[in-house]
């Protein structure tokens, strides 16, 4: 039999014992950048006053905005990742969550290559929290899964391959150098009749495995069998037959359904709560009222939701903010803010012409089609929670707090996720299911309604951008200033930010994302202004890039027009220095060729371009639009993307297609409105999404400027979409669209 984790070697046991320590270390790594900053800030405040504080924050923000995302340390034992059974099936346990981005397939390709697996003898599993991966590592966010996991997975797979090689050699009485791995087996080089399957090598192993202390040599890229190929998605058979289980689909024996009372205004707290006549409503099993929380469990989902309306609840506090007030708060002031980029001096640049514009991006919801959902079973000293989440670690932490249970007693089983786009980075529904299950002793499923999800999730923050630029007498771009105003992303305490981080950074690094100026302009400055609204806002696909790239790339077009230069040529002229500039040029050139930019579009059509550098990936996007009084229509999109080495080209193309269509949806249609302290959009009848009629023809060129994955694929493209559309509309009809959603009226 294959080794089970609990039967493993001392190394594995040591690794398990170190789990908490590793977790602490990974957190510490994340805080290291901050830690240095705290000292500087403290010294700055005492000795240097505001100037030194500003300089320290500038340095820290630069580190944040250009550095790699934090990630948990991977476990050192290959048996956490792989089990190979006697039937020679390699079971892969994937720590990252499959939410449609194809990550289970891409990570399997990486592992299968180094471990020389036969693709037909692989079975992929979602790892749960008991598997041995820490929560930070399982957190699936920020388009970082491939870039963060590529090297660790290759190393761990190669380690197991070498352990199997040594064992195969021993079993055959050969030397390790004679053995070659091929198709989930080892054989003596040139003698296929000597083949022994991995499953048999493991079954016949006597004694304990020892894990080598050094990382074996990895394959050359030219020897890749799976990396770089469009391997078919490993999850689609289950999905097209309806067998795949998502958080909303989990069923266990004896389960009941829960619903939770929601406030009438954001920030309102329960002042008093009694059962009212909820207990006598059909199907009601129990009313649960405790610590500012009121919920109901019932035999059927709709019964629980109905009974909630019969609770006697009094709410206090909260906001009564209106959309007009939000629009007024979220604007870029003339003074103040936190400096996040400064090169040269924008105020002393040659200035024979000044160009200025302001842009606005509204709040928007994720509208992932599976609303929040979780199933919890809780006993006096344990909890098992199935949940549709991007953040199993945070979910476990928050449930531990809510249940007053040690984290080790809580098992989180992540399911397939029916869309997320940042919405499933919190822990709301998992905590609700756990609280209801604990109070009643029954397994409880909580699935939010669409109305709950649209009103009570967090949303993309409202943002405003103010840019100005100067041209000298020859029409050269001499200075560019970008002022950003936004409500919170990382600074939302519900998703882990808040007080300390804010004091340190001054600027929310995730709301500022995409705000840095990469163009090679002598004088550049970016200032971030925290303009907080009392409405929950946080992660949305692309983070700040959506608003900030809309503004900066629309403005780049405005400058090009004033300078009288073709907008694509203008971007090439100011491409960044060094390697990044070469990547910009390659991407712009590829997109230009795809779109045949040099040839004007047909009458009635306009083309626009936008380029972005986000999460290590360079994107150049050209779109072609038509427009009349009623409607902007995007007919064609041409996109060149350079994330370095691409693991699965077809999967990468799917992300480009999806990002473009979601970007079109948000740019043309989406706006969440708040009145009297509560969202007024409740469902898809008053929050329309793009449909098939909105989908353009999409052509994609994948570029690889590096032999390893250096950039993400899930988000970078979406930031380029709004500006490409607005620039195309300007090219078509001379109208500048500076506020989303775009209307021509």
């Amino acid at each position, binding site marked *: 039999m294959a080794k089970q984790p609990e039967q493993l070697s001392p190394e594995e046991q040591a690794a398990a014992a170190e789990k908490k320590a590793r977790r602490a270390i990974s957190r510490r790594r994340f805080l290291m950048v901050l830690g240095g900053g705290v000292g500087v800030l403290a010294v700055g405040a005492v000795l240097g006053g505001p100037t030194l504080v500003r300089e320290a924050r500038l340095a820290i923000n630069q580190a944040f905005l250009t550095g790699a995302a934090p990630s948990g340390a991977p476990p050192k034992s290959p048996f956490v990742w792989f089990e190979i059974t006697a039937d020679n099936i390699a079971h892969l346990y994937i720590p990252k969550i499959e*939410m*449609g*981005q*194809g990550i289970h397939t891409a990570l399997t390709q990486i592992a299968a290559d180094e471990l020389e697996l036969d693709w037909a003898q692989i079975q992929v599993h979602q790892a749960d929290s008991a598997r041995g991966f820490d929560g930070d590592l399982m957190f699936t966010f920020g388009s970082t899964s491939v870039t963060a996991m590529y090297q660790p997975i290759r190393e761990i797979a190669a380690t197991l391959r070498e352990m199997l090689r040594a064992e195969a050699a021993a079993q055959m009485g050969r030397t390790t150098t004679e053995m070659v791995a091929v198709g989930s087996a080892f054989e003596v080089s040139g003698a296929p009749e000597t083949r022994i399957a991995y499953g048999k090598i493991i079954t016949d192993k006597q004694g304990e495995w020892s894990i080598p202390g050094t990382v074996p040599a990895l394959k050359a890229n030219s020897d890749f069998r799976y990396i770089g190929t*469009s391997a*078919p*998605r490993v999850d*689609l*058979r289950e*999905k*097209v*037959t*309806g*067998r*795949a*289980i*998502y958080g*909303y*689909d989990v*069923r266990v024996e004896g389960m009941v*359904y829960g619903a939770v009372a929601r406030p009438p205004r954001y920030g309102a707290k329960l002042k008093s709560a009694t059962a009212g006549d909820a207990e006598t409503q059909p199907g009601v099993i129990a009313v649960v009222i405790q610590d500012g929380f009121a919920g109901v469990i019932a035999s*059927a*989902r*709709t019964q629980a939701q109905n009974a909630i309306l019969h609770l006697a609840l009094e709410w206090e506090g909260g906001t009564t903010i209106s959309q007009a007030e939000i629009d007024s708060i979220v604007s870029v002031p003339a003074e103040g803010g936190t400096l996040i980029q400064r090169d040269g001096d924008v105020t002393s640049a040659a200035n024979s012409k000044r160009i200025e514009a302001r842009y606005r991006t509204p709040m928007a919801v*994720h*509208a*992932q*089609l*599976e*609303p929040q959902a979780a199933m919890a079973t809780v006993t006096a000293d344990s909890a098992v929670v199935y949940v549709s989440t991007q953040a199993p670690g945070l979910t476990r932490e928050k449930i531990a707090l809510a249940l007053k249970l040690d984290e080790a007693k809580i098992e989180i089983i992540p399911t*397939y*996720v*029916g*869309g*997320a*786009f940042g919405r499933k980075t919190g822990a709301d529904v998992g905590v609700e299911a756990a609280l209801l299950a604990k109070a009643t002793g029954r397994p409880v499923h909580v*699935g939010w*309604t*669409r*109305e709950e999800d649209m009103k009570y999730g967090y949303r993309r923050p409202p943002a405003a951008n103010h840019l100005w630029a100067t041209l000298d007498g020859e029409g050269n771009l001499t200075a560019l200033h970008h002022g950003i105003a936004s409500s919170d992303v990382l600074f939302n305490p519900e998703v882990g930010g808040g007080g300390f981080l804010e004091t340190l950074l001054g600027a929310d690094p995730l709301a500022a994302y995409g705000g840095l100026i990469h163009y090679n302009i002598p004088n550049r400055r970016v200032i971030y202004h925290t303009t907080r609204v009392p409405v929950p806002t946080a992660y949305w696909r692309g983070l700040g890039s959506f608003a900030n790239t809309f503004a900066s790339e629309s403005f780049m077009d405005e400058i090009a027009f004033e300078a009288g230069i073709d907008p694509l040529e203008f971007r090439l002229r100011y491409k960044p220095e060094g390697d990044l500039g070469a990547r910009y040029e390659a991407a712009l050139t590829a997109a230009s060729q795809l779109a045949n930019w040099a040839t004007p579009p047909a009458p009635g059509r306009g083309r626009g371009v936008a380029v972005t550098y986000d999460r290590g990936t360079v994107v150049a996007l050209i779109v072609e639009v038509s427009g009349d009084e009623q409607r902007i229509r995007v007919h064609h999109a041409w996109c060149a993307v350079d994330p370095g080495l691409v693991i699965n080209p*077809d999967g990468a193309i*799917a992300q480009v*297609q*999806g*990002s*473009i*269509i*979601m970007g079109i*949806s948000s740019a043309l249609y989406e706006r969440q409105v708040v009145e009297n302290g509560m969202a007024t959009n409740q*469902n*898809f*009848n008053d929050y329309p*999404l*793009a*449909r*098939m*009629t*909105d*989908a353009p023809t*999409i052509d994609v060129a994948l570029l690889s400027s590096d032999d390893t994955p250096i950039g993400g694929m899930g988000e970078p493209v979406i930031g380029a979409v709004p500006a490409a559309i607005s620039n195309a509309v300007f090219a078509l009809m001379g109208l500048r669209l500076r506020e989303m959603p775009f209307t021509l009226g």
Partner: protein
Amino acid sequence: MELNVNGQTYEVEVSADDLLLWVLRDTIGLTGTKFGCGIGVCGSCSVHIDGMVMRSCITPAAIAVGKTITTIEGLATVNDAGEEVLHPVQEAFIEHQVPQCSWCMSGQMMTAAAFLESNPTPNDDDIIAAMSNNTCRCGTYVRIRSAVARAAQIAEDRA
């Protein structure tokens, strides 16, 4: 009441206004049919009742009594050897690697399957018209479009 789903009869205790979606998912346990909006807009809950596409989230289960209900779990068939044979739409959706998160896909495929019954040789405009009332937030529309055309081809090849 008695419901016939995917060729099997289920005796379910439900009241007259219980919605078919929740009866299928929570009472019978066929969770392949998905909940998206609850107001019949997104199409994730689409099933066939006597071959017609219906939005199960706004359809009382009682309406389906005495009729034949087909859900995504009943779209594939089983051959003489006992193997699962995917419906041409399912096969095409895999071939074109359509689904991302796939939460909307049961509804997309049920809509496509009924559409191809009524129009076995559609052009692109027919496909867009038939499929444009089903929402996909992952933005797989260009692949749905090509896969429905491909499914028509597969069905013709099998006939």
